[in-house]
């Protein structure tokens, strides 16, 4: 194992930051290292620029515009960190919104220490982290909220295989088990996950237009 992953913890609850720092200090020795903390959007942006973390543990509800705002304002940085959302909210709007904003994964605060260390490691390596609930929301988003006829077929619909992977994740399978179930390699599972993530992040013109008009940018 090489150098530990540098982590920035962003949360407006000081007690929670302390808890995460303690937990990671205990279970993530040698694998992750908390390099800085921040409590709102402005301090988070400043901390990203100053501490140069690999992974940002990002609360979704933050004073100053929420976690999405932090991702928007740090996107232009040369080696922008990867974001892992860590939130109490498991509302569909928050989860999908944050993933669309650029987060590589989304876990809720009831996660255990070792699982969190694992998730940070996976995100640092560029993989996505999908919890069962998140996979359910993704399936929901593609099935219900995006009208099929209006969507660019190639880009926005999940392929049959990606859908299958997402359903297995939603059923509570670990990546390894998904691979075994579908007779593919774990690497392929992760490729499918990245593809889902890419599709979620506004890949088509239609989605982009909708996103912009929702925010009155057009």
């Amino acid at each position, binding site marked *: 194992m090489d150098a530990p992953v540098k982590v920035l913890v962003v949360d407006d609850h000081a007690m929670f930051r302390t808890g995460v720092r303690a937990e990671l200090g205990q279970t993530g020795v040698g694998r992750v290292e908390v390099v800085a903390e921040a409590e709102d959007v402005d301090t988070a942006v400043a901390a990203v620029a100053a501490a140069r973390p690999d992974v940002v543990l990002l609360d979704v509800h933050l004073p100053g515009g929420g976690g999405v705002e932090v991702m928007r304002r740090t996107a232009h940085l040369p080696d922008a960190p990867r974001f892992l959302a860590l939130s109490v909210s*498991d509302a569909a709007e928050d989860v999908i919104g944050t993933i669309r904003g650029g987060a590589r994964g989304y876990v809720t605060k*009831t996660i255990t220490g070792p699982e969190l260390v694992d998730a940070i490691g996976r995100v640092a390596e560029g993989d996505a982290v999908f919890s069962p609930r998140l996979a359910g929301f993704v399936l929901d988003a593609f099935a219900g909220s995006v009208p099929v006829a209006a969507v660019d077929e190639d880009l926005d619909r999940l392929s049959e295989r990606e859908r299958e992977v997402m359903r297995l994740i*939603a059923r509570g399978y670990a990546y390894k088990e998904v691979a075994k179930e579908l007779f593919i390699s774990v690497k392929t599972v992760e490729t499918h996950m990245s593809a889902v993530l890419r599709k979620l992040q506004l890949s088509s013109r239609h989605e982009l237009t909708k996103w912009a008009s929702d925010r009155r940018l057009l």
Partner: protein
Amino acid sequence: MTTQELHPPLGARRMTRASAETWLGGVASGLAAHLGVPVQWARIGFVVAMLFNGAGLVLYGALWMLVPSDASFERSTPGLEGASRQGRRPMAQRLLGDVGPVGSLVVAGIGLILALQVMLGSFSVLVPLLVAGLGVALLWRQADEAQKQRWFDVDGRIDPVRAVIGADTRAGWARIAAGAALVLVAVSIFAVGSSGLAMAREVWIATVLGIVGVVVVAAPWLLRLASDLGAERAERIRTQERADMAAHLHDSVLQTLALIQRNASDPTQVTRLARRQERDLRAWLYTGDSLDDATLAGALRDLAAKFEDDHGLVVDLVAVGDCDVATVVRPVVQAVGEALTNVVKHAGVERVDVYAECGAHEVEVFVRDRGVGFDPAGVAADRMGVSGSIIGRIERHGGRASVRSTPGDGTEVRIVVPLAPVTSPTHEEKN
């Protein structure tokens, strides 16, 4: 949050009538509270003032009409207000029921009439005036009651009848009828007494025409006022509902924290309490209204909650899509319940994943645990739990169910039920 709205800075102090401790209209207690004097002084003051040509009576009546009741201005903490609205706190009782005020009004009225008759010996003007005054007092008394009830009314609309009568219909109608009758009698007495029957008819017609004219002229304003009031009421009720809900949640959080403090040494109990509280809060914050058990997702949520409470089983429920087809929802939920019972009894684990998906054509549910597992081939034929309660039940409803299990690797139950069966159930069963 909303504390600024609930507690505006106390600038101009407004007098209100006390609605809780009234003999008549609560004017004396309201005035006493406003002036900061004992309530008996205020009452004595009114009685003394009455000696000066009935000035006290006039003053009391005027204040009764003009000063608003305090029932609408009660301000307290959100928790106490919420509890009051839901009837979970002792409310101040009226000192006397309706009988007292009405009875005293009648007695006082008759006494006054007799006294004035003795003093002045004239019927023509005074008697009708007094009778009319009595009727108007009764009507105002009823308006008070209706106003008070409107404030505790949780319906969003203004119902014109309810606005006048209030919810307590029989007493309300009686008061209104008595009041209106008294006023009519007064007008009649005046008309007949002053100029005979022929003239009385003219007075009557003129009165009715006058009333109709006023109503026609004022109608647009009245209508607009009513609709504005309706909108504001709806807004207020929404706010109150949210406040009540928040108060309830804070209350239950406090209860849970108290229980956790007392059970701090019992980790499973603490976990269970925490999870139940979390579920409550989450349902309120994020789930919205889809909590009724008529839909599949709602019913499964209920089921999961039940297992979490009763058996300490952590049910991770993921629901994609939702449907409310009763013929599908009930058997599926029962089968899932059976599968969860098996997990509790045999799997030896504390968490289970449940995934439900409502597609366009079928409903699929998976229940997966990572417990001890078993060998499906080795299950005795007389064990009915799986074959009867899960597979048999689902097949009777035209679906398919299967159980996959490996010893040491956990069990997965898969349930598929078609949404609109195009083929007959027997055909399905053959597959």
